[in-house]
């Protein structure tokens, strides 16, 4: 059967990308059950549309675009957005009262950064996560978010600036003044 070939190829695509796409969705939704559902939906849609994909298409970027669209629909409900934020906020480690060493400060800064990321506007968060956690280029991020690569980059920079502002005093930075 002619399609058998295409199906085998798709099996390879699942093997190569499913874990990463689910991880991306887990970072975005913060809930394993949502990541399960959305990653499954991503690949089922991919399977249906795969035959019309140009042969030289970047399959990984294409899957990220499907997953991103599904996440944006998912977060049209504000409640889900709050829920995802709450999950991250709840995981913030509590300082144990000892003299804060650099490791502890770093851990706390990391947790605070994660909380700030979870609270970002959806587009910024998606762009930031694709760029910083999954190393997608701005062309692919722009395609996922239906915007230009420049706008995609601006979303990521906005996110970084917000983390910068949010961490103003909590970040153990080795600057000239502390050296």
């Amino acid at each position, binding site marked *: *059967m002619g399609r058998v070939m295409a199906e085998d190829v798709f099996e390879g695509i699942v093997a190569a990308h*499913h874990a990463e796409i*689910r991880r991306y969705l887990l*970072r975005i939704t913060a809930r394993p059950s949502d990541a399960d559902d959305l990653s499954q939906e991503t690949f089922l849609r991919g*399977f249906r549309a795969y035959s019309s994909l140009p042969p030289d298409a970047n399959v990984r970027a294409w899957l990220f675009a499907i997953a991103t669209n599904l996440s944006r629909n998912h977060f049209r409900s504000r409640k889900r957005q709050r829920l995802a934020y709450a999950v991250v906020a709840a995981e913030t480690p509590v300082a144990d009262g000892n003299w804060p060493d650099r490791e502890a400060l*770093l851990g706390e800064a990391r947790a605070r*950064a994660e909380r700030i990321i979870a609270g970002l506007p959806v587009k910024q968060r998606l762009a930031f996560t694709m760029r910083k956690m999954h190393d997608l280029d701005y062309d692919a991020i722009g395609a996922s978010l239906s915007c230009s690569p420049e706008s995609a980059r601006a979303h990521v920079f906005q996110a*970084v600036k917000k983390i910068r502002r949010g961490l103003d005093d909590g970040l153990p930075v080795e600057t000239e003044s502390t050296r």
Partner: protein
Amino acid sequence: MTMPHPVCREIEPDLLAVAAREAGAAASERVERHVAACRPCRGELERYRAIEGLVSGIKGAPLPGDDATLARAELESRLADLRSRIVGFGIYSSPVGPILIARSELGVSMVRYLEGRVSPVSPQVRRVLGEDAVEDRAATESLHRELLEYLDGRRTHLDWPLDLRRVRSAFQRRVLEATARLPYGAVTSYSGIARQIGAPTAMRPVAQALRRNPLPIAIPCHRVIGNSGALVGYAGKKVGLKQRLLAIEGVRFGAAHGELRVDREAMYVCPPEEVEYCLPTCGSISSRPLAEVRLFGSRQRAEAAGLSPCTTCRPDLHPLN
């Protein structure tokens, strides 16, 4: 932190790019020149670099719930299910007009006579096959070739795996399965099929079930005729096509009461439970209704179906003309 100087505000995107190691040569140089002279921005660059370090720490840290094993297994099973439903089809010309052949992973799922020129994307095709169907001539071409050989009389068997999942009714399934067992070149009546499936009075339901045969030719409903020998009906109003298919298989016809009928007097006869075939005049066989026998147009067809000549009437010694 606010950056008081407009030059500092302007350099900020470059600063971010340098910290993220994304800056081009020109931007890097701009930043280098600026921070050499501007202490607050030097501090900013360090902070952004620290944030990049923090972010890559987050990226590398284990993520709670990051186990895709179960999700992957579920996805695989959904895909397998979806795959088995996907239908690949082709539309071909044939001596009996344009014909659609569709198959799934499990087997051939549809053969359909089409009217006129039909495009693969026409609403008619979508309605018949559903949205998930894809044109796939590579998957159906060999079927088409075999069908042409069959219509040409060069092939007596279509050994196709069949996908009957679209047939929801258990009754219709039984009718189709009994019909599929009718050998090449044999005919019986609707009542004959009804008897075989253990529902001897269900002649009309059998006719209805065959009218909705999704796989004409592959399931040879053209070999099922009326009790009188009249052809009755086929694929809507294509009785002429039914006659043509039967003629290919060597079935004999005559006219009675101004109507075309299968000529029982010119055919060999075999009750379904027997292993011998007879002349139409053998013993009491001529008085048995068509529902209780199968007819063959030639000895060759009867013998190809595994039957041997009757030792009483000896059709081998006295063949029909």
